[in-house]
Protein backbone atom coordinates (compact mmCIF):
# COMPACT_ATOMS: atom_id res chain seq x y z
CA UNK A 1 0.00 0.00 0.00
CA UNK A 2 2.80 2.41 0.88
CA UNK A 3 4.36 2.44 -2.58
CA UNK A 4 0.87 3.07 -4.05
CA UNK A 5 0.69 6.35 -2.19
CA UNK A 6 3.57 7.79 -4.16
CA UNK A 7 1.96 7.97 -7.55
CA UNK A 8 3.52 10.23 -10.15
CA UNK A 9 0.69 12.74 -9.69
CA UNK A 10 1.56 13.09 -5.99
CA UNK A 11 5.29 13.26 -6.64
CA UNK A 12 4.73 15.89 -9.32
CA UNK A 13 2.90 18.18 -6.88
CA UNK A 14 5.64 17.51 -4.31
CA UNK A 15 8.46 18.41 -6.70
CA UNK A 16 6.64 21.32 -8.33
CA UNK A 17 4.14 22.58 -5.79
CA UNK A 18 1.51 24.94 -7.24
CA UNK A 19 0.75 28.20 -5.48
CA UNK A 20 3.88 27.82 -3.38
CA UNK A 21 5.26 30.97 -1.76
CA UNK A 22 4.21 33.94 0.31
CA UNK A 23 1.77 36.79 -0.29
CA UNK A 24 2.95 40.34 0.17
CA UNK A 25 -0.22 41.22 1.98
CA UNK A 26 -2.57 38.50 3.08
CA UNK A 27 -6.09 39.04 4.36
CA UNK A 28 -6.29 35.68 6.05
CA UNK A 29 -3.58 33.38 7.36
CA UNK A 30 -3.66 29.93 8.89
CA UNK A 31 -0.88 27.64 10.09
CA UNK A 32 -0.82 24.04 11.16
CA UNK A 33 1.95 21.79 12.41
CA UNK A 34 2.20 18.04 12.66
CA UNK A 35 4.03 17.30 15.91
CA UNK A 36 4.87 13.76 14.81
CA UNK A 37 7.26 14.86 12.11
CA UNK A 38 7.73 18.57 12.75
CA UNK A 39 6.04 19.55 9.50
CA UNK A 40 4.35 22.91 9.24
CA UNK A 41 2.25 24.59 6.61
CA UNK A 42 1.14 28.21 6.40
CA UNK A 43 -1.68 29.19 4.10
CA UNK A 44 -2.06 32.82 3.05
CA UNK A 45 -5.20 34.10 1.37
CA UNK A 46 -6.04 37.38 -0.37
CA UNK A 47 -9.69 38.33 -0.84
CA UNK A 48 -11.25 40.33 -3.63
CA UNK A 49 -12.50 43.85 -2.94
CA UNK A 50 -15.96 42.58 -1.99
CA UNK A 51 -14.28 40.16 0.44
CA UNK A 52 -16.32 37.30 -0.91
CA UNK A 53 -13.88 35.44 -3.12
CA UNK A 54 -10.34 34.07 -2.72
CA UNK A 55 -8.39 36.06 -5.22
CA UNK A 56 -4.99 34.65 -4.43
CA UNK A 57 -3.86 31.59 -2.46
CA UNK A 58 -0.29 30.81 -1.42
CA UNK A 59 1.18 28.21 0.88
CA UNK A 60 4.60 27.88 2.41
CA UNK A 61 6.31 25.53 4.83
CA UNK A 62 8.00 22.21 4.86
CA UNK A 63 6.49 18.79 4.85
CA UNK A 64 6.37 15.29 3.44
CA UNK A 65 5.20 14.49 -0.07
CA UNK A 66 1.67 13.76 1.12
CA UNK A 67 1.18 17.01 3.04
CA UNK A 68 2.86 19.12 0.34
CA UNK A 69 0.84 17.52 -2.46
CA UNK A 70 -2.30 17.97 -0.40
CA UNK A 71 -1.50 21.67 0.13
CA UNK A 72 -0.67 22.17 -3.52
CA UNK A 73 -3.89 20.53 -4.69
CA UNK A 74 -5.99 22.31 -2.09
CA UNK A 75 -4.54 25.71 -3.03
CA UNK A 76 -5.28 25.08 -6.70
CA UNK A 77 -8.74 23.94 -5.85
CA UNK A 78 -9.77 26.96 -3.76
CA UNK A 79 -8.05 29.76 -5.68
CA UNK A 80 -10.63 32.02 -7.29
CA UNK A 81 -13.52 30.36 -5.46
CA UNK A 82 -16.15 32.19 -3.39
CA UNK A 83 -15.73 31.81 0.39
CA UNK A 84 -19.13 30.17 0.64
CA UNK A 85 -17.83 27.36 -1.53
CA UNK A 86 -14.39 27.18 0.11
CA UNK A 87 -15.96 26.73 3.54
CA UNK A 88 -17.68 23.59 2.26
CA UNK A 89 -14.42 21.71 1.62
CA UNK A 90 -14.30 18.61 3.78
CA UNK A 91 -11.85 15.89 4.70
CA UNK A 92 -13.44 13.56 2.17
CA UNK A 93 -12.80 16.11 -0.58
CA UNK A 94 -9.12 16.22 0.31
CA UNK A 95 -8.92 12.43 0.34
CA UNK A 96 -10.69 12.26 -3.02
CA UNK A 97 -8.37 14.91 -4.46
CA UNK A 98 -5.30 12.91 -3.41
CA UNK A 99 -6.91 9.67 -4.53
CA UNK A 100 -4.45 7.42 -2.72
CA UNK A 101 -4.73 4.92 0.12
CA UNK A 102 -3.77 6.58 3.40
CA UNK A 103 -2.81 4.86 6.65
CA UNK A 104 -4.19 6.40 9.87
CA UNK A 105 -0.82 8.02 10.56
CA UNK A 106 -0.47 9.49 7.10
CA UNK A 107 -4.04 10.83 7.08
CA UNK A 108 -2.75 13.43 9.51
CA UNK A 109 -0.23 14.57 6.92
CA UNK A 110 -2.91 14.77 4.25
CA UNK A 111 -5.17 16.88 6.46
CA UNK A 112 -2.57 19.35 7.73
CA UNK A 113 -3.31 21.88 4.93
CA UNK A 114 -7.07 21.59 5.48
CA UNK A 115 -6.55 22.41 9.15
CA UNK A 116 -4.50 25.43 8.17
CA UNK A 117 -7.37 26.51 5.92
CA UNK A 118 -9.84 26.04 8.78
CA UNK A 119 -7.67 28.28 10.95
CA UNK A 120 -7.50 30.93 8.24
CA UNK A 121 -11.28 30.99 7.91
CA UNK A 122 -12.00 30.73 11.63
CA UNK A 123 -12.63 34.44 12.14
CA UNK A 124 -14.76 34.93 9.04
CA UNK A 125 -18.49 34.68 8.43
CA UNK A 126 -17.80 31.47 6.54
CA UNK A 127 -15.85 29.23 8.92
CA UNK A 128 -14.83 25.77 7.84
CA UNK A 129 -15.57 22.85 10.10
CA UNK A 130 -13.15 19.97 10.39
CA UNK A 131 -14.97 18.56 13.42
CA UNK A 132 -17.07 16.25 11.28
CA UNK A 133 -13.90 14.40 10.47
CA UNK A 134 -13.55 11.69 13.10
CA UNK A 135 -10.20 9.99 13.10
CA UNK A 136 -8.16 13.07 12.33
CA UNK A 137 -6.84 12.72 15.83
CA UNK A 138 -5.08 9.40 15.97
CA UNK A 139 -4.73 8.28 19.57
CA UNK A 140 -1.23 7.35 20.59
CA UNK A 141 0.44 9.20 17.78
CA UNK A 142 1.88 12.03 19.78
CA UNK A 143 5.49 12.63 20.45
CA UNK A 144 7.07 9.22 20.26
CA UNK A 145 10.13 8.08 22.20
CA UNK A 146 13.64 8.84 21.04
Amino acid at each position, binding site marked *: *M*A*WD*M*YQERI*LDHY*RRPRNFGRLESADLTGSESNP*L*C*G*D*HITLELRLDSARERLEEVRFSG*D*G*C*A*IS*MASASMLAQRIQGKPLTEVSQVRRTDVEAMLGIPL*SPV*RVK*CALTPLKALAEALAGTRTPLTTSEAPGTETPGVG*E*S*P*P
Partner: protein
Amino acid sequence: MAHPSPARPEAPASATVSPPGGRGVGGCRRDFPILSRTFGGHPLVYLDSAATSQKPQRVIEVEADFYRRLNANVHRGVYALSEEATEAYEGARARVARFLHARDPAEVVFVRGTSEALNLMAEVLGRGPLKEGGRILLTDMEHHSNLVPWQLVAADRGWELDYVGVTDDGELSPEDLDGKLTRGTSVFSFTHVSNVLGTVNPVPALAARAREVGALTILDAAQSAPHLPLDVQALGVDALAFSGHKIFGPTGIGVLWVRKELLETLPPYQGGGEMIMEVTRERSTYKDAPLRFEAGTPNTAGAVVLSSALDYVEHLGYDRMAHHEQGLLKEAWEGLSALAGDDLTIYGPPLSRGHVGVLSFSLKGVHPHDLATLLDAEGVALRAGHHCAQLLMRRYGVSALSRVSYGPYNDAEDNRAFLQAMGKVCRLFQRP
Protein backbone atom coordinates in the same frame (compact mmCIF):
# COMPACT_ATOMS: atom_id res chain seq x y z
CA MET B 1 36.18 5.22 27.95
CA ALA B 2 34.69 7.82 25.69
CA HIS B 3 35.52 5.86 22.61
CA PRO B 4 34.61 2.34 21.65
CA SER B 5 37.16 -0.12 22.92
CA PRO B 6 39.75 -1.37 20.49
CA ALA B 7 38.49 -4.00 18.17
CA ARG B 8 38.81 -7.56 19.34
CA PRO B 9 39.35 -10.10 16.60
CA GLU B 10 35.93 -11.36 15.69
CA ALA B 11 33.96 -12.42 12.66
CA PRO B 12 33.67 -9.24 10.58
CA ALA B 13 30.23 -8.00 9.51
CA SER B 14 31.01 -9.16 6.02
CA ALA B 15 28.77 -9.11 3.00
CA THR B 16 28.73 -12.89 2.77
CA VAL B 17 25.68 -14.69 4.08
CA SER B 18 26.12 -15.52 7.74
CA PRO B 19 25.73 -19.15 8.70
CA PRO B 20 22.31 -19.98 10.13
CA GLY B 21 22.20 -19.08 13.80
CA GLY B 22 25.43 -17.15 13.44
CA ARG B 23 23.81 -13.73 13.11
CA GLY B 24 24.51 -10.82 15.42
CA VAL B 25 27.12 -10.68 18.18
CA GLY B 26 27.96 -14.31 18.92
CA GLY B 27 24.83 -15.34 17.00
CA CYS B 28 22.67 -13.48 19.54
CA ARG B 29 19.98 -12.67 16.99
CA ARG B 30 18.38 -16.02 17.74
CA ASP B 31 17.88 -14.89 21.36
CA PHE B 32 15.33 -12.29 20.25
CA PRO B 33 12.02 -13.92 19.33
CA ILE B 34 10.47 -10.73 17.95
CA LEU B 35 13.07 -10.61 15.19
CA SER B 36 11.49 -13.65 13.55
CA ARG B 37 8.29 -11.70 12.84
CA THR B 38 7.48 -10.71 9.29
CA PHE B 39 5.65 -7.64 8.02
CA GLY B 40 3.88 -7.78 4.70
CA GLY B 41 5.90 -10.85 3.85
CA HIS B 42 9.22 -9.19 4.70
CA PRO B 43 11.29 -10.29 7.67
CA LEU B 44 11.49 -7.54 10.27
CA VAL B 45 14.63 -5.43 9.84
CA TYR B 46 14.70 -3.59 13.14
CA LEU B 47 16.87 -0.48 12.94
CA ASP B 48 15.37 1.53 15.80
CA SER B 49 17.20 0.24 18.85
CA ALA B 50 18.01 3.77 20.00
CA ALA B 51 14.27 4.22 20.57
CA THR B 52 13.96 0.91 22.36
CA SER B 53 15.93 -2.31 22.26
CA GLN B 54 14.37 -5.69 21.64
CA LYS B 55 14.33 -8.24 24.47
CA PRO B 56 16.10 -11.58 24.62
CA GLN B 57 14.12 -14.70 25.51
CA ARG B 58 15.96 -15.23 28.79
CA VAL B 59 15.01 -11.73 29.98
CA ILE B 60 11.38 -12.22 28.93
CA GLU B 61 11.35 -15.43 30.95
CA VAL B 62 12.61 -13.72 34.09
CA GLU B 63 9.54 -11.46 34.02
CA ALA B 64 7.15 -14.41 33.80
CA ASP B 65 9.14 -16.30 36.42
CA PHE B 66 8.93 -13.38 38.85
CA TYR B 67 5.15 -13.39 38.73
CA ARG B 68 5.01 -17.17 38.78
CA ARG B 69 7.23 -17.62 41.83
CA LEU B 70 8.23 -14.44 43.59
CA ASN B 71 5.45 -11.87 43.54
CA ALA B 72 4.72 -10.14 46.85
CA ASN B 73 5.00 -6.57 48.04
CA VAL B 74 8.46 -5.58 49.13
CA HIS B 75 9.68 -4.09 52.41
CA ARG B 76 6.31 -4.80 54.03
CA GLY B 77 5.43 -8.40 54.74
CA VAL B 78 7.10 -10.47 57.43
CA TYR B 79 6.19 -13.66 55.64
CA ALA B 80 8.73 -15.66 53.69
CA LEU B 81 7.41 -14.79 50.22
CA SER B 82 7.63 -11.06 50.85
CA GLU B 83 11.12 -11.52 52.18
CA GLU B 84 12.09 -13.35 49.01
CA ALA B 85 10.61 -10.61 46.84
CA THR B 86 12.44 -7.97 48.89
CA GLU B 87 15.65 -9.92 48.54
CA ALA B 88 15.20 -10.10 44.76
CA TYR B 89 14.45 -6.38 44.55
CA GLU B 90 17.40 -5.35 46.72
CA GLY B 91 19.53 -7.89 44.86
CA ALA B 92 18.66 -6.05 41.66
CA ARG B 93 19.75 -2.80 43.28
CA ALA B 94 23.08 -4.35 44.18
CA ARG B 95 23.40 -5.70 40.63
CA VAL B 96 22.87 -2.21 39.19
CA ALA B 97 25.42 -0.80 41.63
CA ARG B 98 27.95 -3.38 40.44
CA PHE B 99 27.12 -2.60 36.80
CA LEU B 100 27.83 1.10 37.41
CA HIS B 101 30.85 0.52 39.68
CA ALA B 102 28.98 2.40 42.40
CA ARG B 103 30.44 2.28 45.88
CA ASP B 104 27.14 1.54 47.57
CA PRO B 105 23.79 0.07 46.41
CA ALA B 106 22.13 2.81 48.47
CA GLU B 107 23.20 5.23 45.74
CA VAL B 108 20.83 3.51 43.30
CA VAL B 109 17.23 4.77 43.05
CA PHE B 110 14.78 2.85 40.89
CA VAL B 111 12.62 5.08 38.72
CA ARG B 112 10.42 4.63 35.64
CA GLY B 113 13.12 5.67 33.23
CA THR B 114 15.62 8.36 32.34
CA SER B 115 12.87 10.98 32.00
CA GLU B 116 11.64 10.38 35.51
CA ALA B 117 15.20 10.35 36.84
CA LEU B 118 15.90 13.78 35.36
CA ASN B 119 12.54 15.13 36.50
CA LEU B 120 13.35 13.84 39.97
CA MET B 121 16.72 15.59 40.03
CA ALA B 122 15.30 18.90 38.82
CA GLU B 123 12.43 18.69 41.28
CA VAL B 124 14.40 17.81 44.43
CA LEU B 125 17.21 20.24 43.66
CA GLY B 126 14.52 22.88 43.31
CA ARG B 127 13.03 22.06 46.69
CA GLY B 128 16.44 21.50 48.28
CA PRO B 129 19.87 22.98 47.59
CA LEU B 130 18.71 25.24 44.74
CA LYS B 131 15.55 26.49 46.40
CA GLU B 132 16.75 30.08 46.30
CA GLY B 133 17.92 30.05 42.71
CA GLY B 134 20.58 28.62 40.52
CA ARG B 135 22.15 28.48 37.10
CA ILE B 136 21.54 25.31 35.09
CA LEU B 137 23.73 24.60 32.09
CA LEU B 138 22.37 22.23 29.43
CA THR B 139 23.37 21.63 25.81
CA ASP B 140 21.71 21.93 22.42
CA MET B 141 22.17 18.20 21.85
CA GLU B 142 19.92 17.19 24.74
CA HIS B 143 16.87 15.00 24.36
CA HIS B 144 13.71 16.81 25.45
CA SER B 145 13.78 14.77 28.66
CA ASN B 146 16.92 16.63 29.74
CA LEU B 147 15.45 20.00 28.78
CA VAL B 148 11.82 20.20 29.76
CA PRO B 149 12.21 19.05 33.40
CA TRP B 150 14.68 21.88 33.99
CA GLN B 151 12.46 24.40 32.23
CA LEU B 152 9.50 23.34 34.38
CA VAL B 153 11.33 23.92 37.66
CA ALA B 154 13.23 26.97 36.40
CA ALA B 155 9.96 28.81 35.87
CA ASP B 156 9.08 28.22 39.55
CA ARG B 157 12.47 28.84 41.10
CA GLY B 158 13.75 31.63 38.93
CA TRP B 159 16.65 29.52 37.71
CA GLU B 160 18.75 30.79 34.86
CA LEU B 161 19.06 28.27 32.04
CA ASP B 162 21.86 28.31 29.53
CA TYR B 163 22.84 26.04 26.68
CA VAL B 164 26.15 24.90 25.24
CA GLY B 165 25.98 25.06 21.45
CA VAL B 166 26.95 22.33 19.01
CA THR B 167 29.52 22.56 16.20
CA ASP B 168 28.80 21.71 12.57
CA ASP B 169 30.45 18.34 13.24
CA GLY B 170 28.06 17.59 16.06
CA GLU B 171 30.34 18.14 19.02
CA LEU B 172 29.92 20.48 21.98
CA SER B 173 31.31 23.90 21.12
CA PRO B 174 34.64 24.36 22.96
CA GLU B 175 34.22 28.15 22.95
CA ASP B 176 30.76 27.85 24.50
CA LEU B 177 32.07 25.48 27.16
CA ASP B 178 34.80 27.97 28.02
CA GLY B 179 32.33 30.83 28.17
CA LYS B 180 29.46 29.11 29.91
CA LEU B 181 30.77 26.36 32.18
CA THR B 182 31.94 28.99 34.62
CA ARG B 183 31.79 29.77 38.33
CA GLY B 184 28.21 30.43 39.33
CA THR B 185 26.94 27.41 37.42
CA SER B 186 25.02 25.20 39.84
CA VAL B 187 24.34 22.19 37.64
CA PHE B 188 25.70 20.95 34.33
CA SER B 189 23.31 18.31 32.99
CA PHE B 190 24.26 16.75 29.67
CA THR B 191 24.06 13.65 27.58
CA HIS B 192 26.75 11.01 27.33
CA VAL B 193 25.83 10.01 23.76
CA SER B 194 23.58 12.06 21.49
CA ASN B 195 20.48 10.17 20.32
CA VAL B 196 20.67 12.02 16.99
CA LEU B 197 24.34 12.63 16.28
CA GLY B 198 25.89 9.62 17.98
CA THR B 199 28.44 12.00 19.51
CA VAL B 200 30.29 10.61 22.53
CA ASN B 201 30.88 13.50 24.89
CA PRO B 202 34.19 13.48 26.81
CA VAL B 203 32.51 12.98 30.18
CA PRO B 204 35.52 12.69 32.53
CA ALA B 205 37.01 15.93 31.20
CA LEU B 206 33.67 17.77 31.32
CA ALA B 207 32.95 16.52 34.84
CA ALA B 208 36.39 17.63 35.99
CA ARG B 209 35.87 21.12 34.59
CA ALA B 210 32.45 21.32 36.21
CA ARG B 211 33.94 20.32 39.54
CA GLU B 212 36.56 23.06 39.24
CA VAL B 213 33.84 25.70 38.93
CA GLY B 214 31.71 24.13 41.67
CA ALA B 215 28.92 22.76 39.47
CA LEU B 216 27.17 19.44 40.01
CA THR B 217 27.17 17.12 36.99
CA ILE B 218 24.22 15.00 35.90
CA LEU B 219 24.72 12.57 33.04
CA ASP B 220 21.97 11.32 30.75
CA ALA B 221 23.26 7.84 29.94
CA ALA B 222 20.11 6.59 28.18
CA GLN B 223 21.91 6.26 24.84
CA SER B 224 25.31 5.23 26.13
CA ALA B 225 24.25 2.41 28.46
CA PRO B 226 23.58 -0.06 25.59
CA HIS B 227 26.91 0.72 23.90
CA LEU B 228 29.56 1.83 26.40
CA PRO B 229 30.51 0.45 29.80
CA LEU B 230 29.47 2.86 32.54
CA ASP B 231 31.83 3.40 35.45
CA VAL B 232 30.64 6.24 37.63
CA GLN B 233 34.02 6.52 39.34
CA ALA B 234 35.86 6.95 36.05
CA LEU B 235 33.17 9.23 34.60
CA GLY B 236 33.41 11.46 37.65
CA VAL B 237 29.84 12.73 37.54
CA ASP B 238 27.57 13.34 40.53
CA ALA B 239 24.46 11.68 39.11
CA LEU B 240 23.62 9.45 36.18
CA ALA B 241 20.41 8.12 34.68
CA PHE B 242 19.55 5.36 32.24
CA SER B 243 16.49 3.43 31.09
CA GLY B 244 15.97 -0.30 31.27
CA HIS B 245 14.13 -0.62 27.99
CA LYS B 246 17.05 0.64 25.91
CA ILE B 247 19.35 -1.99 27.36
CA PHE B 248 17.29 -5.16 26.71
CA GLY B 249 15.16 -4.71 29.83
CA PRO B 250 11.48 -3.84 30.22
CA THR B 251 9.79 -0.47 29.88
CA GLY B 252 8.81 1.32 33.07
CA ILE B 253 12.06 0.71 34.95
CA GLY B 254 15.11 2.92 35.01
CA VAL B 255 17.95 3.91 37.24
CA LEU B 256 19.01 7.11 38.89
CA TRP B 257 22.42 6.86 40.50
CA VAL B 258 23.45 9.72 42.74
CA ARG B 259 26.72 10.04 44.66
CA LYS B 260 25.90 9.35 48.29
CA GLU B 261 27.12 12.69 49.69
CA LEU B 262 24.70 14.48 47.35
CA LEU B 263 21.79 12.06 47.57
CA GLU B 264 21.70 12.33 51.36
CA THR B 265 21.20 16.10 51.19
CA LEU B 266 18.19 15.91 48.86
CA PRO B 267 14.56 16.12 50.03
CA PRO B 268 12.01 13.44 49.09
CA TYR B 269 10.55 13.37 45.58
CA GLN B 270 7.05 11.93 45.84
CA GLY B 271 5.23 11.05 49.04
CA GLY B 272 3.56 7.76 49.86
CA GLY B 273 4.16 4.33 51.30
CA GLU B 274 7.62 2.91 51.74
CA MET B 275 9.38 6.27 51.90
CA ILE B 276 8.35 7.29 55.43
CA MET B 277 9.59 6.61 58.97
CA GLU B 278 6.64 8.08 60.83
CA VAL B 279 3.49 9.90 59.84
CA THR B 280 1.53 12.17 62.19
CA ARG B 281 -1.24 14.66 61.49
CA GLU B 282 1.29 17.47 61.54
CA ARG B 283 4.17 16.07 59.58
CA SER B 284 6.09 13.02 58.52
CA THR B 285 9.65 11.87 58.75
CA TYR B 286 11.35 10.08 55.92
CA LYS B 287 13.54 7.10 55.40
CA ASP B 288 17.12 7.38 54.26
CA ALA B 289 18.08 7.15 50.62
CA PRO B 290 17.32 5.35 48.42
CA LEU B 291 13.90 4.40 49.84
CA ARG B 292 13.14 8.06 50.53
CA PHE B 293 12.90 8.51 46.76
CA GLU B 294 10.79 5.44 46.06
CA ALA B 295 7.25 6.22 47.20
CA GLY B 296 4.65 3.53 46.66
CA THR B 297 5.02 -0.07 45.59
CA PRO B 298 7.97 -0.06 43.23
CA ASN B 299 8.28 -1.79 39.89
CA THR B 300 9.67 -4.84 41.61
CA ALA B 301 9.45 -7.16 38.64
CA GLY B 302 10.96 -4.47 36.42
CA ALA B 303 13.99 -4.13 38.69
CA VAL B 304 14.54 -7.88 38.82
CA VAL B 305 14.17 -8.19 35.04
CA LEU B 306 16.52 -5.25 34.52
CA SER B 307 19.20 -7.01 36.53
CA SER B 308 18.90 -10.03 34.22
CA ALA B 309 19.18 -7.68 31.22
CA LEU B 310 22.43 -6.33 32.67
CA ASP B 311 23.66 -9.93 32.99
CA TYR B 312 22.83 -10.36 29.32
CA VAL B 313 24.76 -7.24 28.27
CA GLU B 314 27.82 -8.35 30.16
CA HIS B 315 27.45 -11.83 28.70
CA LEU B 316 27.58 -10.31 25.19
CA GLY B 317 30.40 -7.98 26.22
CA TYR B 318 30.78 -4.28 25.42
CA ASP B 319 33.96 -4.85 23.40
CA ARG B 320 32.30 -7.32 21.08
CA MET B 321 29.15 -5.20 20.75
CA ALA B 322 31.15 -2.06 19.96
CA HIS B 323 33.24 -3.82 17.34
CA HIS B 324 30.14 -5.30 15.71
CA GLU B 325 28.04 -2.13 15.78
CA GLN B 326 30.84 0.08 14.52
CA GLY B 327 31.18 -2.29 11.58
CA LEU B 328 27.48 -1.93 10.79
CA LEU B 329 27.60 1.86 11.09
CA LYS B 330 30.58 2.07 8.74
CA GLU B 331 28.92 -0.22 6.23
CA ALA B 332 25.68 1.82 6.26
CA TRP B 333 27.59 5.09 6.05
CA GLU B 334 29.53 3.93 3.01
CA GLY B 335 26.50 2.26 1.44
CA LEU B 336 24.34 5.37 1.77
CA SER B 337 27.09 7.60 0.42
CA ALA B 338 27.51 5.36 -2.61
CA LEU B 339 23.76 5.39 -3.26
CA ALA B 340 22.96 9.04 -2.83
CA GLY B 341 26.23 10.92 -3.29
CA ASP B 342 25.83 14.66 -2.92
CA ASP B 343 22.13 14.37 -2.09
CA LEU B 344 23.06 12.75 1.23
CA THR B 345 23.92 14.56 4.46
CA ILE B 346 24.99 12.55 7.49
CA TYR B 347 24.88 14.34 10.84
CA GLY B 348 27.32 13.94 13.69
CA PRO B 349 31.05 13.41 13.99
CA PRO B 350 32.97 11.02 11.74
CA LEU B 351 33.30 7.49 13.12
CA SER B 352 36.97 8.12 13.84
CA ARG B 353 36.06 10.81 16.39
CA GLY B 354 33.61 8.63 18.29
CA HIS B 355 30.16 8.12 16.86
CA VAL B 356 28.03 5.50 18.52
CA GLY B 357 24.81 3.61 17.94
CA VAL B 358 22.92 5.89 15.52
CA LEU B 359 23.22 7.23 12.00
CA SER B 360 21.03 10.24 11.23
CA PHE B 361 20.79 11.49 7.69
CA SER B 362 18.81 13.54 5.23
CA LEU B 363 18.33 12.90 1.56
CA LYS B 364 17.73 15.90 -0.66
CA GLY B 365 14.22 15.91 -2.10
CA VAL B 366 12.96 13.08 0.09
CA HIS B 367 11.18 13.89 3.31
CA PRO B 368 12.11 11.55 6.21
CA HIS B 369 8.47 10.75 6.80
CA ASP B 370 8.05 9.47 3.24
CA LEU B 371 11.30 7.59 3.46
CA ALA B 372 10.23 5.82 6.66
CA THR B 373 6.82 4.95 5.21
CA LEU B 374 8.38 3.37 2.14
CA LEU B 375 11.05 1.50 4.09
CA ASP B 376 8.36 0.18 6.40
CA ALA B 377 6.67 -1.37 3.38
CA GLU B 378 9.91 -3.33 2.88
CA GLY B 379 9.97 -4.50 6.48
CA VAL B 380 12.62 -1.97 7.50
CA ALA B 381 11.81 -0.14 10.75
CA LEU B 382 13.71 3.12 11.11
CA ARG B 383 12.95 6.40 12.79
CA ALA B 384 11.89 9.62 11.10
CA GLY B 385 11.09 12.84 12.90
CA HIS B 386 12.63 15.33 15.28
CA HIS B 387 13.85 12.60 17.63
CA CYS B 388 12.74 14.59 20.68
CA ALA B 389 15.63 16.93 19.94
CA GLN B 390 14.09 20.06 18.49
CA LEU B 391 17.03 22.24 19.57
CA LEU B 392 19.24 20.14 17.30
CA MET B 393 16.74 20.20 14.43
CA ARG B 394 16.75 23.99 14.65
CA ARG B 395 20.55 24.08 14.91
CA TYR B 396 20.88 22.20 11.63
CA GLY B 397 17.92 23.91 9.95
CA VAL B 398 15.86 20.77 9.41
CA SER B 399 12.39 19.84 10.58
CA ALA B 400 13.09 16.13 10.67
CA LEU B 401 15.79 13.54 10.03
CA SER B 402 15.86 9.85 9.26
CA ARG B 403 17.80 7.68 11.67
CA VAL B 404 18.96 4.09 11.74
CA SER B 405 20.29 2.67 14.98
CA TYR B 406 21.81 -0.67 15.77
CA GLY B 407 21.75 -3.33 18.42
CA PRO B 408 23.97 -6.40 18.79
CA TYR B 409 21.32 -8.49 17.02
CA ASN B 410 21.59 -6.52 13.76
CA ASP B 411 23.86 -7.77 11.04
CA ALA B 412 25.01 -7.31 7.46
CA GLU B 413 21.75 -8.80 6.16
CA ASP B 414 19.82 -6.01 7.90
CA ASN B 415 22.07 -3.44 6.26
CA ARG B 416 21.63 -5.08 2.89
CA ALA B 417 17.82 -4.94 3.19
CA PHE B 418 18.04 -1.33 4.35
CA LEU B 419 20.30 -0.23 1.50
CA GLN B 420 18.27 -2.11 -1.08
CA ALA B 421 15.09 -0.36 0.08
CA MET B 422 16.94 2.96 0.08
CA GLY B 423 17.90 2.33 -3.53
CA LYS B 424 14.24 1.90 -4.41
CA VAL B 425 13.35 5.14 -2.63
CA CYS B 426 16.10 7.05 -4.45
CA ARG B 427 14.87 5.77 -7.80
CA LEU B 428 11.25 6.68 -7.03
CA PHE B 429 12.07 10.24 -6.04
CA GLN B 430 14.67 10.84 -8.72
CA ARG B 431 13.65 13.72 -10.93
CA PRO B 432 12.33 12.48 -14.26
